[in-house]
């Protein structure tokens, strides 16, 4: 198992019930204090719900320790202010607000200077488009806004839910590069379907199945075991066909992998 | 939805009675509503006083009139709950169908000179047609949009009635029913008991129809729509038709209630067309317990009684002796009802009919500890 120090985020027995339906039956996961931890699983396994449960965006029970502090009773905004940056599935960009306003919302008054230099250094485009309504941006640009919001505050943890979903291959590579750089400074919990991106970024992984934790361990180990990957993630027998995932570290190419969502890519 | 409008409270409690009880006892117990029904039937023969609750003996014409109104509004609330508590539709326009029954019947008697029975039938048909037409249109929008469309239609009708087009509605005064067209047995103070029995019959009809409808396959779809409309769609059913059925059934029952109300009060009044009238139905249902068998009835009776009696009580010595801070709000039934309503929403989700179960649960906790 992991040799790193105490995990930054420790989730135990996370359960989510919405209406009459149990969506999570007890998820356990650790986010290591360094690097990227990938949260994997088939569609409907409960990945997004787990993230939303951790953040308190859905009613949940169990234990969520952030640096040893129990946060399961905290309201979402209090938890986030303890240093979490969140880029949700579908990006959560405010369409009628300008890019600058979207970023300004992520500022936390009284919590130090927002790191606009860092953000504009990574995404020079966002400075040029500061006054443009975020709804008129391309999918990739919107994802940049979403990620920029997580980088503005010197957060302790970044949670990114499918940041490459629906993006063109070139943009996927860009996003992966940014996340890779971010993960050098801040631990990242990454929900991702694109196994090439996972291979490139993730050190550790947690696999969910039917609302439970089905597997935990080093990411490379899982991805190297085609049988386990097939069983846990439902991906094709990647090792046996020609279009299998490229070796770790190579550029992320979503179209090359059967796990990639079939949505139309947008730039 | 939330616990406040769960439909199951009553029926499920009955279904889950311990298996140790004998089958025969259960079959007999199912007929318990017959007892209060017989008691209600015999009320006009009773001279029993209910001090505090009613002024004078129960069987006096004044009290019978009040009790009749209580029964009619209890029944009306029960019908309205087909939408709110059984199907999850928040209509702000139910007054329209009630008023349609009363006004159409009355207008036909007055203008066309037809006898009551024919006019009432036409009034009822008007209620059916109107609820089918406006329901079909309103249900094209969902959620709060539906509430607003129903509100708009009812408000349009209310304005129309109050403007008195061609002198047929009587404007803000309303119009008295023509005594010569009504059955002789239903006119005059000496026949209050007959009117009371008509009201009671209306209540029984509504209770039976609602119970039958809710237990029918359609009723089960209504419950599904209320819980989660998507899921019903996934099952391959079109919620629209089922919602329209509920809307028309509730509208028809309301129109029938309007006709009974016309007999009871001897005329059609524009107050029954207003949005306030619908809101008071809403208060009755939620107060008593939305989605339960007896809750809307209890809420309707309590509301109507309070609305009529609290005003009188505030003139009594017990209240006039109070300091102004207490006396002034107590003199307004609507203030008390509004405040009670808000309190029930918070403290007693599920309404007053949940109170016994709540108390039992609380007592059980006390006994255990």
């Amino acid at each position: 198992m992991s040799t790193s120090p105490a995990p930054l985020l420790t989730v135990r027995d996370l359960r989510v019930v919405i209406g009459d339906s149990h969506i999570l039956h007890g998820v356990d996961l650790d986010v290591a204090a360094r690097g990227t931890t990938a949260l994997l699983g088939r569609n409907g396994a409960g990945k997004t719900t787990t993230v939303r449960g951790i953040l308190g965006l859905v009613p949940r029970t169990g234990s969520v320790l952030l640096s040893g502090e129990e946060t399961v009773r905290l309201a979402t905004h209090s938890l986030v202010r303890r240093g979490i940056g969140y880029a949700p599935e579908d990006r959560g960009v405010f369409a009628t607000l300008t890019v600058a306003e979207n970023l300004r919302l992520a500022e936390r008054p009284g919590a130090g200077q927002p790191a606009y230099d860092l953000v504009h250094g990574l995404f020079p485009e966002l400075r040029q488009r500061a006054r443009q309504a975020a709804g008129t941006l391309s999918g990739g640009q919107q994802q940049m806004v979403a990620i920029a919001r997580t980088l503005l505050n010197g957060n302790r943890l970044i949670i990114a839910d499918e940041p490459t979903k629906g993006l063109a291959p070139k943009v996927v590579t860009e996003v992966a590069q940014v996340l890779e750089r971010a993960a050098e400074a801040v631990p990242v919990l990454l929900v991702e379907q694109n196994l090439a991106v996972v291979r490139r970024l993730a050190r550790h992984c947690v696999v969910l199945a039917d609302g439970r934790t089905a597997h935990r361990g080093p990411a490379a180990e899982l991805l190297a075991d085609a049988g386990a990957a097939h069983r846990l993630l439902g991906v094709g027998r990647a090792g046996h066909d020609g279009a299998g995932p490229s070796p770790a570290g190579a550029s992320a190419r979503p179209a090359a992998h059967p796990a990639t969502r079939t949505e139309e890519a947008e730039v | 939805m939330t616990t406040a409008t769960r439909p199951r409270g009553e029926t499920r409690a009955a279904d889950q009675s311990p298996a140790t009880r004998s089958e025969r006892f259960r079959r007999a117990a199912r007929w318990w509503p017959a007892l209060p029904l017989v008691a209600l039937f015999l009320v006009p023969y009773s001279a029993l006083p209910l001090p505090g609750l009613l002024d004078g003996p129960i069987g006096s014409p004044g009290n019978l009139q009040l009790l009749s109104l209580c029964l009619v509004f209890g029944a009306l609330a029960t019908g309205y709950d087909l939408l709110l508590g059984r199907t999850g539709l928040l209509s702000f326009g139910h007054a329209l169908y009630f008023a349609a029954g009363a006004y159409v019947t009355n207008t036909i008697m007055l203008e066309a000179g037809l006898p009551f029975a024919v006019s009432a039938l036409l009034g009822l048909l008007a209620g059916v047609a109107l609820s089918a037409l406006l329901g079909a249109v309103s249900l094209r929008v969902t959620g709060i949009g539906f509430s607003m469309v129903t509100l708009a239609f009812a408000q349009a009708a209310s304005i129309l009635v109050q403007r008195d087009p061609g002198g047929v509605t009587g404007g803000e005064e309303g119009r008295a029913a023509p005594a010569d067209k009504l059955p002789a047995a239903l006119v005059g103070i000496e026949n209050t008991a007959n009117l009371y029995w008509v009201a009671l019959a209306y209540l029984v009809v509504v209770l039976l129809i609602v119970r039958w409808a809710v237990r029918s396959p359609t009723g089960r779809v209504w419950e599904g729509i209320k819980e989660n409309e998507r899921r019903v769609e996934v099952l391959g059913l079109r919620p629209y038709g089922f919602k329209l059925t509920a809307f028309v059934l509730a509208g028809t029952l309301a129109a029938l209630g309007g006709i009974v109300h016309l007999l009871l009060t001897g005329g059609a009044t524009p107050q029954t067309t207003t949005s306030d009238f619908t809101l008071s139905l809403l208060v009755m249902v939620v107060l008593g317990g939305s989605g339960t068998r007896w809750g809307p009835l209890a809420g309707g009776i309590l509301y109507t009684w309070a609305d009529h009696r609290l005003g009188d009580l505030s003139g009594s010595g017990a209240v006039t002796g109070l300091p102004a801070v207490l006396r002034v709000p107590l003199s307004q039934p609507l203030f008390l009802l509004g405040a009670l309503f808000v309190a029930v929403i918070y403290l007693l989700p599920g309404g007053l009919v949940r109170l016994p179960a709540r108390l039992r649960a609380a007592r059980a906790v006390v006994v255990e500890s």
Partner: protein
Amino acid sequence: MSTVVLLTLTGLGLGALYFLVASGLSLIFGLMDVLNFAHGALMSIGAYGTWWAASGHLPGAGPGGAAFALAVVFGTAVGTVAAVLLELAVIRPLYARPREQILATVGVGLAVPALLSAIWGADARPFPGPAALSGTAGLLGAEVPFNRLVLIAAALVVLAALRLFLSRTRHGLVVRAGVEDRAMVTALGIDVRKAFTLVFAIGGAAAALGGAIGGLYFGSVDPEQGTSLLIFAFVVVVMGGMGSLAGAALASVAVGLVQQFANYYTTAGLGDLAVVVLLAALLLVRPRGLTGRLA
């Protein structure tokens, strides 16, 4: 010509009154999904507060000049406090139960007028006001009552202030973002409930101001006044798109003008009827009109 001018300005005055009620209603619905049935009651509270102060109960306030302005400030302040109390005590504990929130506002909307009539009687009370505002102004050949102009001016000031608030302040930014996606605002570390209280305060203040100045327009106050305006305010909110301030402003003008002209040139009451039928028609044609955006 003078009739048209008078009708136009009276229609605009009525529209201004609608806007004062509908602006808050729209912001509240846009941000919180709460259809506030107690909003008319807030307007009545503002009207009664002003009436009470201007009738000589508040030292310094009275029916004339600056003393009347003080009475209006007092009435608006009372309405604002009532709105904040409503949000904190009634709406907030029912957070995440939108239907119960609506029902609770229905209860408050019934109880408040009843309480007002318990204290001051159900009958209309003459509304004191400065003599200067009870006159008329000659405008393009028409004698236009001053109170219409005061209403229009008040609505314009409120519109401008709200736009500045929404576009220039961080709180305004939070409100605009919250109208779009409340959950995401909290996920950025912002306590969106503060914005709820804030929009209630703003909406309550605007409605109470409407009540205070509306007293001049009607010449009297009665407990049901606010509630009877509420339905037309709903029409405005739906027409303008829930949550859209500019939409509410335009729709207010349209509804006020349609009502005045139709009531004058056709049968009295037809304007009111036309407006509510318009609401139904609009919702049916454009049900999305309910999910408008802030502009």
